[in-house]
């Protein structure tokens, strides 16, 4: 399998070449174009229960698509994300990683998609109650609105709500006010997320809620 990211960093999308017998998994509606001979099958996202939980409590799609090459030649599929922005690929080697809602785009067939209770704190921070946790062996592609930044943290770090894309499963996320009451209300930051732990976090430079609230002021 050959996975390339084209159009970086503003309009990044994935070009995946599948060899005979290979399967690649992608978020529902991520496919923009593909070889007609490629087989596409919708499957529950993280199992039957996981799919339902993710749909109704995690505000994510219930299904993922499995693209399988059942021919004897190389076939191509192009995959994309809803927002303009960057895409990155991480490689899991029997590790797991947490992705915020909407960040997941695609993964190798050997990667397990699971769900994880995010805590009520996550709801206050404006995120879903459940988080996607990817684990196993293989590549995972995820994207963000705007640019993607990463940071190794050891201890604590603060990320504005809506900008966190991915984090290590051992990390603790706590919503809190950005500053004092005054600066939290008038400084434009409101809630932020305090991250505690060790490992790599991914951050997106823009967020859709920010765009929506700007448009809302003009409606």
């Amino acid at each position, binding site marked *: 399998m050959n996975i390339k990211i084209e159009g970086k960093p503003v309009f990044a999308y994935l070009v995946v070449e599948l060899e005979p017998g290979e399967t690649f998994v992608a978020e529902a509606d991520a496919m923009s174009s593909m070889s007609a001979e490629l087989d596409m099958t919708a499957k529950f996202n993280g199992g039957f229960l996981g799919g339902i939980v993710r749909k109704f409590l995690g505000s994510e799609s219930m299904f993922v698509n499995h693209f399988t090459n059942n021919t004897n030649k190389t076939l191509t599929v192009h995959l994309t994300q809803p927002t303009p922005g960057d895409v990155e690929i991480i490689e899991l080697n029997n590790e797991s990683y947490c992705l915020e809602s909407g960040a997941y785009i695609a993964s190798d067939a050997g990667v397990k998609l699971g769900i994880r209770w995010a805590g009520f704190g996550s709801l206050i921070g404006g995120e879903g109650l459940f988080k996607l946790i990817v684990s196993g062996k293989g590549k995972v592609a995820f994207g963000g609105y705007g640019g993607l930044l990463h940071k190794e943290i050891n201890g604590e770090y603060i990320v504005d709500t809506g900008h966190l894309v991915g984090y290590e499963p051992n990390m603790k996320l706590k919503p809190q006010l950005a500053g004092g009451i005054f600066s939290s209300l008038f400084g434009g930051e409101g809630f932020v997320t305090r991250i505690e732990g060790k490992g790599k976090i991914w951050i997106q430079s823009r967020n859709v809620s920010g765009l929506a609230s700007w448009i809302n002021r003009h*409606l």
Partner: protein
Amino acid sequence: MENQFEDIKPKGSLDVTIKLRPGSSAAEIKLLPGQEFTAEAGAMIAMSPSIQMQTTTYKKNSGGIMKGLKRMLSGESFFLNHYSAGYEEGTVWLGATQAGDMMVKELNGEGLIVQGGSYVASSPNIEINTNWQGFKSLISKESLFWLNLKGRGTVVFNSFGAIYPIQINGEYIVDTGHIVAFEESLNFTLTKAGKSWLSSILGGEGLVCKFSGTGTVWIQSHNTSTFGYILGPRLKPRK
């Protein structure tokens, strides 16, 4: 000067340069004295003072109301603007609403089908027709209307995101919201994306376009409808 120009470019061609690609594309069109072109209403961002602008519903001097109405259905503006240089040469800059790329294509008598909304501008001798693709268009989540461009000259179109061409020889599937334009030589059917209808609907792809034959389809990396679906629920109702 005019002869020199005709030596370089085929007759009817426009001198178009796309700047600021791919994020904030703008088309700079240089007109020689007497030259003119047609553009989507609202696309102009700047122009020389000597350029004359005329607005019609269809072709210059032949504004058909029905043709204009049909074009409005296709997601394009009801009106088209015609820009012409008088005795002086001049420049017109055109932009697009969505962040994304633009493309220039020369037509030599063949036809090009452009998705409603992607059309930016064309030479005056390119015919613009709205083709109703039949009831099969209605059941698609995107409104599948096309502009049929035919003739000799230049066509400019835009996209949401990057544009990539796929040379088809055989069969290829494109999500309906990602099609920018395709060559008339291609046939297409609206069909399911997966093995089964159930998979196609559950997998969020719904109806897709299956192209067959030989020709090029230009695809946009992003989909305005999908972006709209994630933005829309966060917007408050209009007052």
